[in-house]
């Protein structure tokens, strides 16, 4: 009976292990959002109650914890996961138990589940605009695609390769390089990049290097004197949090593509930063893109619940589509039928103070494209979770749901 008094919200982010470095912040954001919402009176007249668990950067544990949240704690929605593999691990659980997951991190796409709402960027909301920027503004002709060897970089690079070749870039002008997780000795690779970049053509690095490996990478870039003016590096996984661990002076001008930067100059963002720094009692605490994604996701969920008048999964899932909430960069993001959201794409240059100077912004919002148009097998797939289609992988060529077969 007591359980009826509150609505439970699950927070499924690693607080220990390798991913804690990124995910802990997201847990804190969620706690802050929930606290705020409760100050406003909660949802449907009930207080929200956060349920925090630690999946410890251990992928099977993610599934176990998800199951625990859904079937033991009976949470109304879960905000969580960072890596693709953690999402892949919990996906069957959410589908089986019909839960709701908000996933806040940019990812490789190629997925659409009825029970997952993707508030981070799909490749077309991050990678492609970044490359476009480099093509147009930096006149880049040679490309180094450097990434950690896992699915997100692999897919992104595949998409980019296809895209670049479509733009007339020759195969020999693309260098692809994969490194293991946590790679820390970048001497040879940075020197290879320098070599590749001194062939007389303008060269840029597109980095999908993940997590911990970035700090040593950037330190090595700085030390070997790879300047942004000569060989700019554009990263998709490096945000303000990551930069907090490096001396950014030598990195001036290197780029990142996101849908949000702390330096976004809007009243909403200023307000958010103020609240965040007050909540964490740290006036220097930075914000970043996945945090914004959670803000958007959470607000969407609240709105959808109020619209549906219940927290029951099916009703909320249905009412989520079409919900529009303000994002922090001054516009409105909407939940699309493919469970991805519309976002602006921003390109920023690293500044000495560890922030990004926004050098380019898409004029309008870009809608997340779950099935990439640049991969042969997903070209003809679309996702639409509205009735009557209600399908995550509808094949427009065959007119059937369920990939290309059946």
């Amino acid at each position, binding site marked *: 009976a007591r359980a009826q008094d509150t609505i439970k919200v699950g927070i499924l982010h690693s*607080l*220990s*292990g*390798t991913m*804690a*470095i990124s995910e*802990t*912040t997201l847990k804190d954001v969620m706690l802050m959002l929930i606290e705020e919402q409760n100050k406003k009176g909660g949802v449907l007249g009930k207080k929200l109650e956060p349920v925090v668990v630690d999946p410890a950067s251990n992928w099977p544990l993610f599934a176990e914890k998800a199951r625990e949240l859904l079937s033991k704690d009976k949470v109304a929605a879960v905000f969580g996961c960072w890596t693709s593999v953690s999402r892949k691990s919990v996906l069957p659980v959410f589908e089986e138990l019909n839960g709701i997951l908000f996933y806040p991190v940019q990812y490789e796409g190629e997925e659409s589940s009825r029970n997952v709402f993707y508030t981070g960027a799909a490749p077309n909301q991050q990678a492609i605009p970044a490359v476009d920027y480099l093509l147009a*503004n*930096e006149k880049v002709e040679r490309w180094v695609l450097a990434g950690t*060897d896992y699915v997100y970089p692999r897919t992104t690079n595949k998409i980019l390769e296809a895209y670049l070749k479509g733009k007339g870039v020759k195969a020999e002008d693309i260098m692809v*390089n*994969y*490194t*293991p997780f*946590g*790679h*820390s*000795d970048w*001497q*040879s*690779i940075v*020197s*290879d990049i*320098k*070599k590749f970049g*001194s*062939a*007389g053509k303008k060269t840029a690095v597109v980095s999908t290097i993940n997590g*911990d490996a970035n*700090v*040593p990478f950037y*330190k*090595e870039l*700085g*030390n*070997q*004197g790879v300047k*942004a*003016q*000569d060989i*700019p590096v554009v990263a998709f996984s490096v945000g303000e*949090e*990551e930069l*907090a*661990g*490096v*001396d950014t002076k*030598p990195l001036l*001008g290197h*780029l990142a593509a996101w849908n949000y930067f702390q330096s976004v100059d809007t009243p909403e963002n200023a307000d958010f930063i103020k609240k965040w720094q007050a909540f964490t009692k740290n006036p220097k605490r930075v914000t970043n893109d996945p945090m914004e994604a959670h803000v958007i996701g959470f607000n969407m969920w609240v709105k959808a619940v109020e619209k549906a008048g219940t927290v029951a999964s099916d009703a909320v899932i249905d009412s989520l589509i079409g919900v529009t909430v303000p994002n922090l960069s001054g516009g409105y993001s909407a939940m699309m039928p493919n469970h991805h959201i519309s976002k602006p794409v921003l390109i920023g*240059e690293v500044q*000495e103070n560890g922030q990004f*100077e926004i*050098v380019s912004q898409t004029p309008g919002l870009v809608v997340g494209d779950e099935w990439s148009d640049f991969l042969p097998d997903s070209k003809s797939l679309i996702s639409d979770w509205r009735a009557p289609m209600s399908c995550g992988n509808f094949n427009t060529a065959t007119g059937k749901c369920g990939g290309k077969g059946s």
Partner: protein
Amino acid sequence: MPRALRLWAAMLLVVAATAATLSGALAADLKPLVRNLGAGGFADTEAAIAALAQTGDPAVVPVLQALEAGDLYVRKEDREVVRGSASNGGYTLTDPLGGAALGEAGRGAVDKIRINNSLRRAISAALGSLTLMSPDAGARRAAADSVFKTRNPDGLAALETALGRENDPAVRSIMEQARAAILLTAAGTPDADRLGAIETIRARGDQESLALLNAVRSAEGASAAVRAAADKAFEAVEMRLSLWGMAQNLWYGLSLGSVLLLAAIGLAVTFGVMGVINMAHGEMVMIGAYATFLVQDAIRTYAPGLFDASILIAIPVAFLVSGAVGVLIERTVIRWLYGRPLETLLATWGLSLVLQQAVRSIFGPTNREVGAPSWMSGSFELGGLVITHGRLWIVIFAFLVFGLLLVALKRTWFGLAIRAVTQNRNMASAMGIRTARMDALTFGLGSGIAGLAGVALSQIDNVSPNLGQSYIIDSFMVVVFGGVGNLWGTLVGALALGTVNKFLEPYAGAVLGKILVLIFIILFIQRRPRGLFALKGRAVEA
């Protein structure tokens, strides 16, 4: 008057005259050009920079430098471009052209002129041609470098003038190379000049030269002679580069090896000498790194002037902090476990979890910034080798630590006593050795050395609670590969693994390279089941 003298005089006159006209007559004309810098978007700014450069007036140099440094602002009230330096709460404004004071302005009263990479490039190109005759040799050198990179044929005249006056041989040779580069890229250069330029570029012999020569080689309409010369030069440079590439790899191997050495050497004490399977070794490294962070943080807030010495100060601090934690651990946990080496694995694993989480709770889960002092940043070239200062110091530091430890263990009473204790604790005690104190000191020493590794690693890796985890396995590999209990083994093992890794990486890629190294270790241990520097004889078999 001899001819040469006359020529000199004439030239001086011309130069003087130009300078006079430029500074006098055009000073007023610069103002609107500078104003244009703040006109609008990046493209407008770029045009304004080009226009400023076009004037050739040295007076624009400080303006452009200010722009590059991000010190130029647009005063909102009159759209005037001013130079601002932050003063409490606002800015102190000066005129970018003359330096005249323009008063104060609040934060909201000015807009910063933003620059991006292409602007930065434009600025350095402009500065390049403008500073070729700067009195500062360094600036001239940088200018020549930038001309070499841009290869803008319009700059040829200025370059040649500068060349005529250059006395510094090093700068001179770069200027000549820049000239050669322009000659080679420009259309319509006579073949004789081209051939000379090819020679100059060949002598430069770096990657850029290679690209340049390649372009010449494949350029359409080049004469056969030029093409042949370019071909030959190309091959020569390529050869030279591949030799230097080997040397570079060796250096990378050495530097990776010394990182491994640093990480492993503390373990060579706690594990190699004492026999404690010390899974918390990585955390000692991490604590050292955090100690470095704290030292630097304190220096940043209390004595910013000491920043360059921060790493030096951190060395003893990290040693003591990690060492103290080590002694504490030894006294409370490890000392109950002697003679049960396998149990130390369980306990130290537990400790490593606790320490990680403790650091996470205190410092937060995110990376902490440890900056590089100026003498550790950047790089220098040695022939065709690029050596970064940071790595060089780490190599030196690693060898230093190794040497000191070697002396401590092999040449001092302490070293003898501790080896006696670990080989036969009871008998050592019966001989009168204070075993408990020795154990604590040794574990402290090993932990302290791990802390030193933390200082070095803070320069190249994340300072995060996970720092230690990423080195623990490598450390064990190194110690075991070299032969447990043999310090020289640890040294050679670390360097060997580092080098092998770096030689495999270019061919196999980082991932496969690492796998191959692991397989190499497995196979190697088959050949030498007690490591590289195995102790032999009855003494060990008994």
